[in-house]
């Protein structure tokens, strides 16, 4: 079949053809960008945390009135938690990956007297069991040694930072930024004026709020927190399926240690993570819905206009059939017509999609639209156009040649 007669017949319906092209172009631009945004959000939601997510539970407590020996009470609490059946580890730490409620970050420098820190990273406080309980994997170096740990009360009691030094474990990405291509274990970095020796490298540990900067720049300090000083209990269970039962037993165990405290929050870590990404998940849902509805609306527009054309050309089609055109040829006429319109719309839409992406890059700090999205959108819209035109085209093909002999 020749394309030429189709193009000349389209020329007779310039306005309607232009409208279809415009609609496809707009839909293409919006859907292309929406798909890209969906992809970005899915990547965000799937970001790894570097900890044993499914096996962890969190409990936050607060004392009522002044707490005299929160450090000792914390040791009691942890012992009680470890005694709960199903618990394989219990620890106290200051923050968690993907945690909306608080985050502490610090600047880390390569020299003691640097004006601007080399980078900012999340500062995690660890006790003897934190690394094992959280399931943080060390890829180089070692865990902290027993004599490297300090109680937070000791740290707070220190007058000034004179002579202070310590050990730290940093994530692999942070080590690479600090010492590109070099061995980081054994090197010294500075936390303010305090020299810290890197003793180990963790494979990964996400920051509480990845939007603070590089999402996996984190370091651990061997400081034992207590529950009343920003500390939160983390419990690792042996069987994730029994999480809820273990959590209830753990809360009961803490209340048995001291009933005069408030349990502020208790949940599975996965719930904390889900809460952190709830907006992203909602945007995924919303963008998907809008994209689908947009495609449906566009399809209806094509059905409407194509039906109109078929009706208008009934006699013409009858004549062609009488002159020997087969049903398949009539069907193909409308399909090719639609393919031409859709393709024109797609070309225009690609340009629009890029313009839209440029605009969003400026306003929402989004990355550039990857080229891979273009063929996806093209195939999607071609398929949509062909599906939408099928019904009007079949009706056209069904027109009998006898129509040609009938007077209007």
């Amino acid at each position, binding site marked *: 079949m020749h394309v030429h007669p189709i193009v000349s017949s389209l020329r007779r319906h310039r*306005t*309607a053809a232009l*409208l*279809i092209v*415009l*609609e496809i172009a*707009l*839909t293409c*631009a*919006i859907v292309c960008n*929406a798909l890209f*945004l969906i992809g970005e959000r899915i990547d965000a939601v799937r970001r790894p945390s570097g900890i044993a997510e499914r096996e962890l539970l969190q409990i936050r407590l*607060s004392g*009522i*009135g*002044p707490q005299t020996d929160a450090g000792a009470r914390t040791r009691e609490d942890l012992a009680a938690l470890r005694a709960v059946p199903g618990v394989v580890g219990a620890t106290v730490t200051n923050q968690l990956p993907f945690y909306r409620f608080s985050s502490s970050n610090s600047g880390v420098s390569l020299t003691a007297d640097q*004006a*601007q820190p080399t980078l900012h990273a999340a500062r995690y406080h660890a006790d003897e069991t934190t690394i094992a309980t959280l399931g943080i994997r060390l890829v180089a170096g070692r865990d902290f040694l027993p004599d490297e740990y300090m109680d937070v009360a000791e740290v*707070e009691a*220190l007058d*000034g*930072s004179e002579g202070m030094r310590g050990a730290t474990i940093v994530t692999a990405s942070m080590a690479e930024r600090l010492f590109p291509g070099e061995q980081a274990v054994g090197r010294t970095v500075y*936390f*303010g*004026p*305090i020299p810290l020796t890197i003793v180990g490298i963790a494979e990964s540990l996400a920051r509480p709020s990845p939007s603070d900067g590089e999402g996996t720049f984190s370091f651990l300090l061997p400081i034992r927190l207590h529950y009343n000083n920003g500390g939160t209990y983390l419990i690792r269970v042996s069987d994730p399926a029994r999480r809820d039962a273990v959590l209830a037993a753990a809360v009961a165990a803490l209340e048995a240690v001291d009933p005069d405290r*408030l349990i*502020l929050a208790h949940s599975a870590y996965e719930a904390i993570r889900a*809460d952190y990404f*709830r*907006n992203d998940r*909602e*945007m995924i849902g*919303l*963008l998907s819905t*809008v994209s689908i*509805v*947009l495609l449906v*609306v*566009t399809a*209806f*527009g094509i059905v*409407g*206009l194509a*039906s*109109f054309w078929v*009706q*208008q050309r009934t006699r013409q089609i009858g004549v062609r059939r009488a002159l020997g055109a087969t049903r398949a040829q009539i069907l193909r006429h409308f399909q090719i017509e639609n393919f031409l319109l859709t393709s024109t719309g797609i070309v225009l839409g690609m340009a629009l999609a890029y313009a839209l992406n440029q605009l*969003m890059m400026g*306003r*929402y700090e989004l990355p550039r639209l990857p080229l891979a999205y273009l063929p996806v959108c093209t195939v999607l819209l071609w398929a949509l156009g062909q599906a939408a035109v099928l019904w009007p085209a079949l009706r056209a093909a069904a027109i009998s040649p006898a129509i040609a002999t009938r007077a*209007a």
Partner: protein
Amino acid sequence: MLGYYLTLALRSFRRNRVLTALMVLTLALGIGACMTTLTVFHVLSGDPIPGKSDRLFHVQLDPEPLATYVPGAEPDSQLTRFDAEALLRDRHATRQVMMTGGGGIIEAEDGAVRPFLESMRYTSADFFAMFDVPFLHGQGWTAQDDAGRGRVAVIGRTLNDKLFGGADSVGRQVRVDGTALRIVGVIDDWLPRPKFYDLNTGRFDGQEHLFLPFSTAIDLKMGTSGSSNCFGGAPTNDSRALNAPCTWIQYWVELEDPAQADAFKAYLANYSAQQKAAGRFERPANVRLRSVMDWLDHRKVVPGDVRLQLWLALGFLLVCLVNTVGLLLAKFLRRGGEIGVRRALGAARRDVFVQAIVESGTVGIAGGLLGLGLAQAGLWAVRQRPTDYAALAHLDGAMLLLTFVLALVTSIAAGLLPAWRSMQIAPALQLKSQ
């Protein structure tokens, strides 16, 4: 004539039910999506303290070291305790207030209610008059209470209901973190949204139920909430100490007119220069004085996702509009014969045009009505979401009016091209081809 056109329009709808339904639905979807996102945007970008928002100003100084100075960069959004207390002592504005968020465990006087954690605000005496806080019983505390670290508190209505069954509790006591505070006032429901005076502690859902003097909270070493930024070379053990190099306090002033605002800004610059001369500040004077709406705009209180949704909905409406133009065009041109006859019988082009516009306007009104229903459904869906502003998503009168304007403008815009095209139909040609 208009009535006749309406009858014609309705008759034509009956003839092309599916096509008409499709147009109405398309427009309704576009309008519904637009109104839902516009309403959310409207609610989030609203004025939290109308009538006074241009007289309340947020104050910023720049106490950070010279080493990290970037000329023209924004100073920290909060003040150090030293600076906040100094400005408060100077009293250069009509009213001024320093504050921070906090929280603590509340125990009832008689122990009838189990202790619970409550969000609080540590502030100074002018807070209540400055932000037009409505009182149910009693009043705020005085500057003497601030100076004397008075053991006083103002509680919110819900807390009053919870602790005292709604009775006038002025003069009674509430225990906060183990210390008894005397209640001097109970405030009525009051919830400016967004919580412009402190955007760090829940912008749309952070309600505080207990207010106490800042000095008292410091004296009692109560826990604070919000953000704190320490910038000294050495790690600080107590970021809330008077001389700690940490910013964590919000500072607001009330000024009567632009002239007073200019004078206050000059005073801030002068204060910075003095601090620099004294060796406390290192940078050149870098102050900001922003009114409520400027402050909200600067802090981008409307979430980026909401703006994105608004653009998405507008794009969606545009596609719906183009679609409706196409369908209307198909519909009108299909009736070419009918229009030809009318033209031959003496109808002016204008009449044909008006009739077409009436018909598309009718589609628009139907689409608008359905769109309104969809917008209500959309807002209901927004309210089911766990976001902090969800509960605020309601259609108000202005938005209702806008829906109809949008529906009418959209559909008439959609009808223009088809109407113009049908007006061009030559009577003779159409009759001949029949």
